[in-house]
């Protein structure tokens, strides 16, 4: 029995370590390439480092990949979208979870059904709408449709259902309106869920590629993923520069992730388990 356990444990750790190396290796490869010269990249077998670490690569790409402009654009869009969704989704979620009104369950079912609608089915009509508003090649085209989400509403509803009813009963007796209950009881109690939704929305918006690809043209309006994709299209074999740009582009979200790991995990489990 003991021996079997030891074998088992060793086996488990070998699997996990192998997996972890597989997960990390592409990142090391990216980092290592980003610090080499172009000549050092095209050698076989590849080396981990070139003759020297060329941090200069990161400075030299600034004209092809103006990171700070893209960063600010991505940041602006992601922050506004996240704030909007936190507001609309928590209100909607509260309504679905706690208030009774005719048609509620049907509306909720329709909301769930929208999760199956591929973005590409609705993107053509949205493109036409944006064109008629004159919003093509502006950030509005990305921000305004992003302020609402069926998924976020669903997530908030699931969380609100776990809040015991007794808490609001007392408030109701004191004559508190549903808005008061939402603001004074539900919002403060749902900080973890709000954080989870916020971080997820931020990540999706930050990494979104399709919408920027379709709606944005001007260089100065591009987001990080779009900027990166355009650069790849133009300099497809300049691997050190491409890798340097890639490192820059994943850095912010990785930092956010490392700081707020728990909320990522919570967001996933919240949406997954009670589905």
């Amino acid at each position, binding site marked *: 029995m003991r021996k079997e356990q030891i074998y*088992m444990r060793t086996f*488990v*750790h070998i*699997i*996990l370590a192998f*997996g*972890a190396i597989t*997960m*990390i*290796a*592409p990142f090391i*490869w990216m980092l290592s390439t980003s610090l080499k010269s172009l000549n050092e990249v095209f050698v*076989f*077998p*590849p080396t981990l480092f070139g003759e020297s670490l060329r941090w200069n690569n990161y400075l030299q790409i600034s004209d092809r990949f103006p990171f700070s402009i893209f960063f600010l654009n991505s940041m602006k869009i992601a922050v506004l979208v996240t704030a909007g969704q936190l507001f609309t989704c928590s209100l*909607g979620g509260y*309504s*679905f979870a706690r*208030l*009774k009104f005719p048609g509620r369950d049907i*509306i909720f079912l329709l909301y769930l059904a*929208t999760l*199956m*609608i*591929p973005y590409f*089915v*609705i993107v053509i*009509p*949205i*493109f036409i709408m944006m064109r008629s508003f004159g919003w093509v090649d502006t950030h509005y085209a990305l921000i305004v449709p992003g*302020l*609402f989400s*069926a998924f976020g509403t669903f997530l908030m509803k699931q969380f609100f259902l776990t809040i015991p009813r*007794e808490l609001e*009963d007392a408030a*109701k*007796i004191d004559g508190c309106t549903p808005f008061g209950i*939402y603001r004074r009881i539900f919002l403060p109690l749902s900080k973890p869920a709000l954080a989870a939704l916020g971080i997820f929305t931020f990540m999706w918006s930050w*990494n979104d*590629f*399709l919408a920027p690809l379709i709606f944005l043209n001007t260089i100065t309006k591009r987001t990080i*993923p779009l900027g*990166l*994709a355009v650069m*790849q299209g133009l300099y497809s074999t300049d691997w050190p520069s*491409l*890798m340097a740009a*890639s490192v820059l*582009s*994943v850095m912010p*979200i990785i930092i956010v*992730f490392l700081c707020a*790991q728990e909320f*990522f*995990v919570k967001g*996933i*489990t919240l949406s*997954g*388990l009670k*589905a």
Partner: protein
Amino acid sequence: MVTRPLRRKLKKRKVKGIAYNEVLWGYLFLLPNIVGVFSFIFFPLVIALGLSFFKWDILTPSVFFGLKNYIKIFQDITFLKVFRNTIYYVAGTVPLGIFIALIFAVALNRASRLIKLYRAIYFLPVVCSMIAVAIVWQWIYNPEFGFLNFVLSFIGIKGPKWLSSTQWAMPALIIVSIWKGLGFNIVIFLAGLQGIPDVYYEAARIDGASAWNQFWRITLPLLSSTTFFITVISVISSFQIFDQVFIMTDGGPARSTSVIVHYLYQNAFLYFKMGYASAMGCILFAAILSVTLIQVWRAKTWVHYGI
């Protein structure tokens, strides 16, 4: 706890005051959200459906086309090819991705001390943008100087040309997708695993059940609702694969990696065939809807809810 008389008092108050009119408040709360979801999801969906019966190039007025778009699509050899490619991709990504995630989740669940560190490592690709990931993997797949063929050469394998080979390009995309999505599935599986009470395993151990039997008769059945959830969302998202294709192969070589959404994108935003592309989108939606409904229907036979 609120006692009975209090609840009754509450009800009375509800009837009396407008201050607590649930119906009014209910709609009011939902309003901002529903306006958005209606204008940017339901309305566009209806328009897309309508548009699929028209021929329209954005610039000149649209022409009513009846079912011609749909008829043309099913005679379009390229569409049939991208449809097959999409099925190939979904079938290659979903089962394998779930299987690997399950193995790692079970293993992680046993490595109690390092669980957080490992979880963070596995989750790292999930947070990165697909664009960056795709570019890095494109370089990894480089046949001569790439990392993958370098590693393969260690074990005496001469790696294929990956992205420039019609045979290997799609598997290459599948590998990237599994690699990127693994952490997401692992975290959901882990949450499911941690929801299984220890007493079941203790009872099984006392009865002398082997580790394999415990996995097969306790873990898998009690995890079935999680597996079901992951399957459904993986299928829905796999059908919509685009970013990797756009960056890594642009559908090539010889359309061997072109998928529905990629072809739809080309039709809509390169050839400006809006009606044709909309019809394609509706077919994609129908495909996703039917596969999901089949899964929900089949779920009764293998998913156990509750413990």
